[in-house]
C-alpha cells in the first residue's frame, strides 16, 4: 500500500464544461475518497423573487441552467399556476411537453457527446454534437432561440407551433432517429467503449435508494421512478409511459438508460403531435398570489426529478421560491461511486451522473 496523496480535480478541467472541484484522496492508483467542493457558480437567484414580479421571474428561472432551460421555466410556471389556481389550455400543455421532450433529446445527446469526450473518443463526440445541432434548429425555428427559448409564460405559452412546423418537426425527428441509432450502436456495442464503461462505478439498488438518487442515474440502478409517470400536465394524455430501467448500476447502464430515453422522448413527441388539441395557447392571468398560499411541483428534468416550491404574500412578488435540483440529489451518489474506483475512471464516473453545477448552486 502506498501513501495517501490528494489530487485536486477542477474547477478548470478539460472534461468539465462547468467548475466543480473534487479533492481526490488516492492511494497508488485507487481513489479512496472524493471530497466535492462547490460554490463557484452560486449567484443567489432565489433571492431575486423579491425584486422581480412573478411574470418577470420566469426569465430568471429559465436561466438557472442553460441546458435544461425549458424545464426550469416549465417547472416555475406550473408552480405559480398552482399557486394562483390558473387553468392552462390543453394545447399549451401539449406544446410544453413537445418542447420539454425536445430539450431532453438535446440534453441527452449533448451528454453522450461529453461522455465520449471523457473516454477519449473524439470523433464520436463530434458526431453527437452534429446530430444535436438538428434539434437546436427545430428550437430556433419554433421559438427563435437556440438554448434559451423564453417561450413559457404563466398561464400558457407565448408562441404556437403551426401545422407546417409540426410536420417539419416530425420529418426532422425521423431523420435524427436513423442517425441516432448508429451513434447508439457505437455507445452500446463498441468494445473499446464498453471497456471504459462496463463494471465501472457500480451503485447498487439499495445504495441508490438510501442516497435518494434521482433521474437516469437512479434508473440505471433499477429505481422505478420517473416524474413523467405521475402524468402531470400534458403527460396525462400519454397512452402509456414506462420508465427506462436497467439493473446493472454501472456506467454502461447509465449510458444505456439515457440512450434509450432519447428514443422514448422522440416517441412521446410523435404521440403528442398526433393528438395535439386545437384551441388557445394561453389564458390571461390577473391578480397576485394570496398571502400565505403555497404550492409545490415536480418536473422530470433531463437529469432527474426537480422540485419547486413557492409561497405568495399577497403582492405580485413571491415571498419565497425554492428549487431542489437533480444534481444536488445525485452528488452523494457520485462520491459513493468514486470511492474505490481507478484514478483513470474518475472523469467517466463524474460525467455519468450528468452533473449540472449551475442548477445545483443557482
Amino acid at each position, binding site marked *: 500500500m502506498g501513501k495517501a496523496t490528494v489530487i485536486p480535480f477542477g*474547477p*478548470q*478541467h*478539460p472534461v468539465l*464544461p*462547468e*467548475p466543480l472541484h473534487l479533492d481526490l484522496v488516492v492511494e497508488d492508483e485507487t481513489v479512496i475518497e472524493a471530497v466535492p467542493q462547490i*460554490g*463557484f*457558480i*452560486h*449567484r*443567489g*437567484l432565489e*433571492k*431575486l423573487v423579491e*425584486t422581480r414580479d412573478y411574470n418577470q421571474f420566469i*426569465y*430568471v428561472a429559465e*436561466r*438557472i*441552467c*442553460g*441546458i435544461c*432551460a425549458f424545464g426550469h421555466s416549465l417547472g416555475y410556471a406550473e408552480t405559480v399556476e398552482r399557486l394562483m389556481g390558473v387553468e392552462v389550455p390543453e394545447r399549451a400543455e401539449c406544446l410544453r411537453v413537445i418542447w420539454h421532450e425536445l430539450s431532453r433529446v438535446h440534453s441527452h445527446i*449533448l451528454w453522450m*457527446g461529453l461522455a465520449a469526450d471523457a473516454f477519449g473518443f473524439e470523433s464520436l*463526440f*463530434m*458526431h453527437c*454534437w*452534429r446530430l444535436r*445541432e438538428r434539434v*437546436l434548429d427545430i428550437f430556433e425555428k419554433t421559438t427563435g*432561440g*437556440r*438554448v*434559451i427559448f423564453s417561450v413559457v409564460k404563466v398561464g400558457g405559452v407565448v408562441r404556437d407551433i403551426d401545422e407546417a412546423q409540426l410536420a417539419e418537426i416530425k420529418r426532422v425527428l425521423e431523420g435524427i432517429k436513423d442517425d441516432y441509432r448508429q451513434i447508439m450502436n457505437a455507445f452500446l456495442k463498441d468494445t473499446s467503449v464498453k471497456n471504459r464503461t462496463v463494471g465501472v462505478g457500480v451503485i447498487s439498488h439499495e445504495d441508490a435508494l438510501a442516497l435518494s438518487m434521482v433521474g437516469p442515474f437512479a434508473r440505471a440502478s433499477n429505481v422505478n421512478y420517473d416524474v413523467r409517470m405521475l402524468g402531470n400536465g400534458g403527460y396525462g394524455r400519454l397512452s402509456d409511459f414506462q420508465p427506462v430501467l436497467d439493473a446493472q448500476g454501472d456506467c454502461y447502464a447509465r449510458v444505456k438508460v439515457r440512450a434509450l430515453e432519447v428514443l422514448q422522448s422522440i416517441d412521446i413527441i410523435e404521440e403528442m403531435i398526433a393528438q395535439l388539441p386545437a384551441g388557445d395557447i394561453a389564458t390571461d392571468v390577473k391578480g397576485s398570489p394570496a398571502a400565505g398560499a403555497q404550492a409545490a411541483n415536480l418536473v422530470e428534468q433531463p437529469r432527474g426529478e426537480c422540485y419547486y416550491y413557492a409561497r405568495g404574500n399577497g403582492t405580485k412578488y413571491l415571498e419565497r421560491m425554492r428549487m431542489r435540483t437533480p444534481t444536488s440529489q445525485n452528488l452523494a451518489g457520485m462520491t459513493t461511486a468514486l470511492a474505490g474506483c481507478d484514478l483513470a475512471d474518475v472523469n467517466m464516473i463524474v460525467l455519468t451522473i450528468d452533473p*449540472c453545477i*449551475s442548477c445545483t448552486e443557482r
Partner: protein
Amino acid sequence: MTYATKSPWVIHYDGSSCNGCDIEVLAALCPGYDVERFGIINTGNPKHADIFLVTGSVNEQNIKVVQEIYNQMVEPKVVVACGICACSGGIFHDCYNVIGGVDQAIPVDVYAPGCAVRPEAIIDAVVQALGILEEKSKALQAQRKGA
C-alpha cells in the same frame, strides 16, 4: 487582416454562467459551426492557449480561478468575454453573490454579448481577437528588438 499568421488555441472557463453560453462555445467548436477547420482548438492547458474565452460573471470564489488562468497564459494573450453575464453581469447583475463582468477581474479585449451568446457572435469575437493578438504580438517583438 487578410490572413491569420497562426491558428490560435482557445481555453474556456465557466465563471458563473448558466451553461447556455458554455454549450454555445462548445457548439462553435463542433461540426455545426466547426471553427476547428481554421485550426482553432480547445485546450485545457492555459500555457498552450492564446485566447481565453470566459463565460459568466465573477464572484468571490471564482475570481481567483479566473485570474490564475489568465496569469498562467503566456504573452501575447487575448481575453474574450462571451455572453452578457461575462460582459456586465447581465440578468444577475444585482444578485448578492455577483461582483460583475469579467473585466472586474482581468482586462477584457473583446466583448461578445447575447443571452445566450450565439456561436456566430463568438466566431466574430474570436476573429476580432485574432487582430488584437497580431498587434500585441508585433508590439512584443518591437519591445524585444528595442531591448
